[in-house]
């Protein structure tokens, strides 16, 4: 009981000690902590939760998300105000998530940590204002824009060439007239009036991340007075077969012109590139407002071209830069094709580069494939084949037939390039072919062997027909075996002789011998039922019965 009371008292006391401290900490803890990053400048802002002015300071720590290594945030230790600048933190990587925590301190008491939600500095950073340098001409202003942040900026280290810039320009006298243009780091704003004060401001944008920066301060500049020698205008460039034609407008005569070119990619890189402009060959000191130069000057790519005029009064400013896309579709010459017939029923085709292509600078870096069209000379049916090899065969063709082929070269993987023209058509006749000869020989042999067989079959067939429709009178051989005696055989089968019976009229005794003869004959007749008759001379089965009857008559006569 006592122990229970003691324990309860102890707990209450402890609670009393703890609770005030907790409430005190809660009062100190900062609120609404925010991070502001502009370029490489990192700011932390918060609100103090305690209203009374006390000796409260704030300290912050940071760590990379995932590690367990809180470090003191430089520039944010024991800060009495509501913000601190921790730009000196040397973040090795602004693309990794950072954790921040901040707490308040009053004497020896510290509040609990306020943990800021982890963030990626790069994604939180705002794009600051770019640095702008201006130079004036009579009708244009030259801009030199440096990317936001310093040259050694960590935040924009990867994006220095990726910024695009938006310029807003207006006449100082009337702020209504505004023009917005998207410019490169080194660019010009044209179509201005001479001797006017123009003001402008510039902001940078990272298009890929949809992030727009703050505007720079306003810069103002006066354009110069009108130049004595005006710049050429309305530059046009067009392709014509193997050349480019560069044209421009100029109001005056007796002027020489000069044209220069630059690879457009250089304009994306901050910094001056005035020394990178190069003369266009055959466009130096031309007196006409056009010049022509070979296409080979520009390999495929995007270029900028500018022109300036000069006469006795001086040299003009450079004209507006004209961008053009030299889609130098590599001129591919048609291939040389040859075809020959091989021993099988096939044709071997060989495709090669033309002799001319070895002299012209055809770009060897593009692998070629060949579109081959193959057809039988007499028909219109064409077969189209894409071949990478230079030697290939068309097999299984008809022998002794003329086939024709033509081919053109294409750049593999570049369907936009229509390739070369077709080569000349080459025709070739296939050989007779061993296979047909073989068939011929086989056919002949088959015929030769089959003749006796056919003859034999025909003979058998005729025999059957003869047997059925024109039978012989010979008995079957089995019967023949049974009745091997000649007279019987004669009786049964022979039709050549007629069995005649001799009849004699008995008038005297001399007749007895005759009767004996007939008796003999009768006796013979008694043993056998069948008998021949003499009636009509025709032998038929029906007469057998009559023959029997006749023998009966004889017997009756004998008995008489």
């Amino acid at each position, binding site marked *: 009981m006592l122990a229970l009371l003691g324990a309860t008292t102890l707990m209450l006391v402890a609670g009393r000690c703890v609770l005030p401290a907790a409430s005190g900490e809660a009062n100190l803890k900062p609120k609404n902590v925010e991070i502001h990053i502009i370029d490489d400048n990192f700011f932390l802002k918060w609100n103090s939760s305690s209203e009374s002015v006390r000796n409260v300071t704030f300290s912050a720590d940071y760590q990379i998300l995932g590690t367990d290594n809180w470090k003191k945030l430089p520039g944010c230790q024991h800060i009495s105000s509501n913000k601190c600048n921790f730009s000196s933190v040397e973040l*090795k*990587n*602004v*693309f*990794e998530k950072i954790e921040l925590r901040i707490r308040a301190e009053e004497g020896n008491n510290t509040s609990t940590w306020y943990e800021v939600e982890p963030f*990626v500095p*790069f*994604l939180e950073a705002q794009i600051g204002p770019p640095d702008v340098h201006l130079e004036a001409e009579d009708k244009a202003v030259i801009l030199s824009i440096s990317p936001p942040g310093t040259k050694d900026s960590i935040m924009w*280290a*990867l*994006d*220095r*060439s*990726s910024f695009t810039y938006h310029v807003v320009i207006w006449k100082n006298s009337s702020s209504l007239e505004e023009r917005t243009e998207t410019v490169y780091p080194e660019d010009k704003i044209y179509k201005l009036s001479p001797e006017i004060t123009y003001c402008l401001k510039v902001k940078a944008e990272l*298009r*890929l*991340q*949809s992030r727009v920066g703050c505007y720079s301060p306003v810069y103002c500049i006066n354009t110069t007075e009108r130049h004595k020698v005006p710049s050429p205008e309305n530059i046009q460039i067009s392709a014509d077969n193997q050349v480019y034609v560069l044209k421009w407008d100029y109001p005056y005569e007796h002027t020489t012109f000069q044209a220069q070119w630059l*690879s*457009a*990619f250089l304009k*994306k*890189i901050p910094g001056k590139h005035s020394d990178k402009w190069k003369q266009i060959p055959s466009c130096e000191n031309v007196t006409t407002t056009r010049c022509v130069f070979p296409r080979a000057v520009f*390999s*495929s*790519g*995007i270029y900028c071209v500018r022109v300036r005029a000069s006469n006795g009064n001086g040299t003009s400013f450079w004209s507006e830069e004209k961008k053009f*896309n030299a889609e130098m579709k590599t001129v591919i010459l048609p291939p040389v094709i040859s075809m020959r017939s091989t021993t099988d029923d096939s044709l071997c085709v060989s495709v090669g580069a033309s002799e001319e292509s070895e002299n012209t600078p055809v770009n*060897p*870096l*593009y*692998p070629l494939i060949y579109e081959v069209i193959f057809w039988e000379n007499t028909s219109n049916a064409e077969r189209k084949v894409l071949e990478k090899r230079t030697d290939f065969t068309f097999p299984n063709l008809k022998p002794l037939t003329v086939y024709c082929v033509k081919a053109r070269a294409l*750049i*593999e*993987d*570049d*369907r*936009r390039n229509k390739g070369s023209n077709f080569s000349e058509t080459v025709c070739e006749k296939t050989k007779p072919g061993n296979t047909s000869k073989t068939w011929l020989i086989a056919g002949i042999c088959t015929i030769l062997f089959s003749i006796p067989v056919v003859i034999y079959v025909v003979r058998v067939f005729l025999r059957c027909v003869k047997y059925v429709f024109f039978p012989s009178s010979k008995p079957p051989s089995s019967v023949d075996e049974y009745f091997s005696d000649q007279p019987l055989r004669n009786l049964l089968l022979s039709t050549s002789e007629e069995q005649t019976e001799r009849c004699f009229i008995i008038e005297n005794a001399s007749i007895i011998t005759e009767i004996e003869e007939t008796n003999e004959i009768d006796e013979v007749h008694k043993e056998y039922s069948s008998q021949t008759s003499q009636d009509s001379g025709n032998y038929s089965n029906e007469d057998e019965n009559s023959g029997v009857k006749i023998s009966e008559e004889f017997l009756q006569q004998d008995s008489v």
Partner: protein
Amino acid sequence: MTYRCLLQMALLLCFSTTALSSSYSLRSSQSRDRTQVYRIGGRLSIVSCLRDRTDFRFPQTLMKRAQQFRKEDAVLVMYEVLQQIFGILTRDFSSTGWSETIVEDLLVELYGQMNRLEPIQKEIMQKKNFTMGDTAVLHLKKYYFSLVQYLKSKEYNRCAWTVVRVQILMNFSFLKSLTGYLRD
């Protein structure tokens, strides 16, 4: 129309890989045996720089997940890779180890490709039609940042450039595979 230009990527890669490999030859050659030349020339510089190798941690997940990319994400990724390679090469024209002509031609080509992708990329950003694209871009930025920091720390010396060149070639093969997926 919008995506047909992506077929040009293969052209770029054919051009660039052969261009880069041919730069190793002692004279600018038009020989077809480029791989042979690459091996002979490349070996000399690479072997001596082997100790300078660093793991830059190219986002391997990108390679694996490339097939799952939608066209919008793939365009953003490709544009970012092109842009970053452009950025790295423009830092120091002369000491990349490749001849300046080669580097300039490569930059011209990269710029041309970016130019072609720009209208598509603008459209995508306007429609906000990307899902994985921006996280992929962030991973890529980490990787390229480590490359740039490495070059800076080594003061753009020959070996550092050798190591980075190898990375660039690897990037081209990644682009090539991405183009392949897009084409299908």
